[in-house]
């Protein structure tokens, strides 16, 4: 995991970041999240053929091609079969049956253009077809192509439509889908042979908007060890720990105590209420109790003789 922080504004960046940073979604293993965003991306990326080509290129970086292609429904594709230029990236990436179709289209179009160059008529016909198909693509990007026609609308069309409506009614949502927050990775260093320092512990507690005490309790309970803050506001933990291990624990903390259990928004407040902690979501208003931090059973790992000496 790399050290990058801040909010990621662009689509392209997002995809790259997914792999490299400690971002919340990855932390939570939200697979469906990308799916959810997909139709929105689609909607926002729409608008003219020029934009569309970019869009298709972009798509090939990500792993979510499936949704995108659906707007070209089978009937239309078959109608436009002889030529379907400009869609190569998408076509090659496409899963399932459609893939075959599009691939065929494309290769056929290419061949025609190259081998039958002399026959002007044909070439022109091709170009005409090209134009036509492009028109069709544009048409289909309008959400309501099925209006007036009696063909069945596809699930994806409906999905797209509903997202467009949502975006229409909530313009502020269009800008940044949801603010993802990316956190600095923990700076974990060995101190001597038996202790580990967690240097940016305070920073992390601050980015998570949690009391350092609460985070500290959780960390120590999970790691089954003891520790304390030192003079430089860094956490000294007894035992040897790798950054990766601390990160894992932080992930679990975020999942349990930071993100809303209902909508996964990180804008939450942790309140203590009659011995129980409640997570109050700022985004959706949900309020739910969270597990209290218990270190549970702790085995005796120190020197038993020393302990006996202390107690007696």
């Amino acid at each position, binding site marked *: 995991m790399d050290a990058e922080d801040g909010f990621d504004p662009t689509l392209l960046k997002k995809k790259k970041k997914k792999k490299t940073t400690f971002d919340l979604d990855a932390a939570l293993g939200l697979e469906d999240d990308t799916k959810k965003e997909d139709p929105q991306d689609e909607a926002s990326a729409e608008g003219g053929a020029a934009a569309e080509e970019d869009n298709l290129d972009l798509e090939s970086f990500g792993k979510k091609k499936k949704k995108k292609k659906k707007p070209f429904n089978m009937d239309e594709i078959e109608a436009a079969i002889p030529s379907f230029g400009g869609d190569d990236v998408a076509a090659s990436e496409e899963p399932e049956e459609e893939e075959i179709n599009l691939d065929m289209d494309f290769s056929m179009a290419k061949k025609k253009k190259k081998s039958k160059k002399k026959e002007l008529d044909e070439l022109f016909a091709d170009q005409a077809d090209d134009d036509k198909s492009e028109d069709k693509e544009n048409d289909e990007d309008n959400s309501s192509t099925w209006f007036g026609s009696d063909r069945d609308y596809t699930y994806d069309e409906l999905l797209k439509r509903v997202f467009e409506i949502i975006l229409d009614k909530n313009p502020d949502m269009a800008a940044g889908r949801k603010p993802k927050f990316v956190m600095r990775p923990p700076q974990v260093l060995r101190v001597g042979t038996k202790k580990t320092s967690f240097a940016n512990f305070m920073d992390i507690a601050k980015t998570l908007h949690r009391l350092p005490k609460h985070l500290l309790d959780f960390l120590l309970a999970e790691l089954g060890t003891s520790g304390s803050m030192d003079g430089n506001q860094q956490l000294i933990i007894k035992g040897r720990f790798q950054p990766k291990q601390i990160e894992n624990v932080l992930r679990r903390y975020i999942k349990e105590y930071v993100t809303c*259990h209902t909508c996964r928004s990180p804008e939450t407040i942790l309140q203590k209420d009659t011995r129980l902690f409640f997570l109050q979501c700022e985004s959706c208003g949900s*309020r739910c109790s969270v597990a209290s931090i218990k270190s*549970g*059973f702790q085995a005796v*790992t120190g020197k038993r003789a020393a302990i006996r000496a202390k107690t007696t």
Partner: protein
Amino acid sequence: MSIQNLNTRDPFADAIKGNDDDIQDGLVHIRIQQRNGRKTLTTVQGLSAEYDLKKIVRSCKKEFACNGTVIEHPEYGEVLQLQGDQRENICQWLTKVGLAKPDQLKVHGF
């Protein structure tokens, strides 16, 4: 507006306990603790008192080729303690022999 999340866990599960199968309810906490050097300990807390922990530890020791013991704790009851990081092993084993369901296992630690 405040909506309390509906817990999937039945709060009365303890009351109507022991109805069908003999899979226990309640969470089993599996923890790891560092000892000196690279050595670690795995503790398993929350196994139902209906089971013979001594028998369990005996077969665990054999299965994972590690030493282990049962510790009586005033608050947490009998706790299984195994040498080394046996978290994966114990999770698999508990589900394999049907002592706990995977969603009852809560693994702590790094």
